[in-house]
């Protein structure tokens, strides 16, 4: 085992040997090395987060036919550092009537909920935080903390706009968690495990996207809703709620919400890649070197992030009643039916050849999506006719 095959373990063993050589308690040295490893991983993520600010600004500029930051440094690469310096030297205010503890805790929790997601995200076959056997459940638990931080921020700010943003976040959290939970069951069924690494390893022949394209799509929609990005950014809603839940936040506290949202989006891109696109696997390239596996994973995560950005900057914000109706009356029943169909086909065709299994899975997903869209189209046609009838009656 050399450094190029398993860099994390080699480095950790070397450091642990060094520390115990200095006469340190073995158990303590182990914890200290693990602590350092976590610190390095999360610090690298924060540095990456700084460049995400640049990526986001550059991409949104391109979507809107602008150039984006291009003055500070080559291609404007130094721009995010200038942003950070600005955020740091801003005055750190807490509004007068605010609930001080909850108010100051909210941005910390917002960032923390994103960072702890990386505990279960396998970056390469040998580089991952924890090989939890309930990894998928951990994702949901950590996601709930991020929604909680927004509720805390909205409630504690002593501002009406922020409070309305917090209220909306409650409605959104309780709505979109259900399709997400249901769809997370689908990779679990295929892999027979809730372990993230096992989910990647069992995608050796086919990506789960091929087996469940509809599931991947529902997961993406629910993830965008959980992120609170457009078209589901009702908790912020700049044009109606000033800035929503973070109206009263300034300086680095606002920065934590902003950076947390960007990193969260990238993380969900990565998780989408892991659950449905094989994570760090790419035609055996990941076996060459863990460094190549990291590269593959980051590219997949950024592609997922790009799709989330694409949706954000091309879709309009929807109203809260439309959002809840879309979730409770369309997405939730659809995801349950999809789960039942997937479980049934999985049981019936488990022993059939892989091609029969994959094609019937794929076709069942497509047919289900078409039926659901047809029903939705008919319902909305009736709704339009009803509204037009009301309009005509009012006119006469």
């Amino acid at each position: 085992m050399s450094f190029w095959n398993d860099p994390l373990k080699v480095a950790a063993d070397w450091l642990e040997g060094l520390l115990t050589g200095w006469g340190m308690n073995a158990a303590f040295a182990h914890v200290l090395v693990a602590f350092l490893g976590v610190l390095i991983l999360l610090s690298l993520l924060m540095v990456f987060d700084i460049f995400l600010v640049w990526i986001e600004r550059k991409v949104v500029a391109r979507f809107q036919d602008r150039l984006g930051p291009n003055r500070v440094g080559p291609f404007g690469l130094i721009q995010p550092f200038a942003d950070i310096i600005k955020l740091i030297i801003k005055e750190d205010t807490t509004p007068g009537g605010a609930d001080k503890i909850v108010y100051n805790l909210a941005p910390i929790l917002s960032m923390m909920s994103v960072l702890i997601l990386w505990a279960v995200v396998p970056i390469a076959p040998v580089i991952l935080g924890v090989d939890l056997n309930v990894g998928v459940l951990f994702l949901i638990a950590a996601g709930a903390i991020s929604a909680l931080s927004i509720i805390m921020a909205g409630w504690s700010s002593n501002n009406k706009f922020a409070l309305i943003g917090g209220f909306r976040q409650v409605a959104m959290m309780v709505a979109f968690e259900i399709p997400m939970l249901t769809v997370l069951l689908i990779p679990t069924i295929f892999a027979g495990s809730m372990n993230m690494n096992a989910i990647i390893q069992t995608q050796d022949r086919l990506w789960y996207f091929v087996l469940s394209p509809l599931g991947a799509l529902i997961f993406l929609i629910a993830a965008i809703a959980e992120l609170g990005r457009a078209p589901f950014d009702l908790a912020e809603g700049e044009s109606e709620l000033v800035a929503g839940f973070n109206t009263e936040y300034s300086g680095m506290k606002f920065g934590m919400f902003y950076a947390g949202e960007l990193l969260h989006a990238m993380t969900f891109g990565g998780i989408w890649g892991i659950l449905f696109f094989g994570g760090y696997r790419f035609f055996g390239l990941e076996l060459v070197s863990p460094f190549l596996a990291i590269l593959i994973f980051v590219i997949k995560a950024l592609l997922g992030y790009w799709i989330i950005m694409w949706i954000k900057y091309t879709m309009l914000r929807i109203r809260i009643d439309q959002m809840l109706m879309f979730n409770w009356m369309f997405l939730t029943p659809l995801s349950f039916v999809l789960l039942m169909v997937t479980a049934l086909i999985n049981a019936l065709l488990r022993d059939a050849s892989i091609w029969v299994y994959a094609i019937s899975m794929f076709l069942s997903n497509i047919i289900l999506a078409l039926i659901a869209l047809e029903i939705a189209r008919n319902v909305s046609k009736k709704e339009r006719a009803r509204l037009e009838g009301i309009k005509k009656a009012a006119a006469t």
Partner: protein
Amino acid sequence: MNEWLYVALFIIVGTIIPIGAIAAGFVFGPKKSNPVKLSTYECGIEPVGDVWVQFKAQYYVFALVFLVFDVEAVFLFPWAVKLGQLGLFAVVEGIIFISILIVGLIYTWRKGMLEWV
């Protein structure tokens, strides 16, 4: 070492990093506060009335429906993990279980509880 200890490390470090960033902002930023600056924003007027109102009852119904489905997920995850070994009987049982929940959802829907008022 227990794997949950690593998760605890992630939570500790994940809390320290944002605290550090906010502390840097606290150290380097100016501190010139006055009551007018600290009053909350309200579209160019002085804040009127109380902010901490009570939640609408509508949210309570949504929360109840959510709770039912969330608890259901706890039952379904072990079912999904062991589905390969349990065979067709367990699949049919799972489908019946989900169908009962869908009937509940349709009941809530028909009662008009899912409408945003």
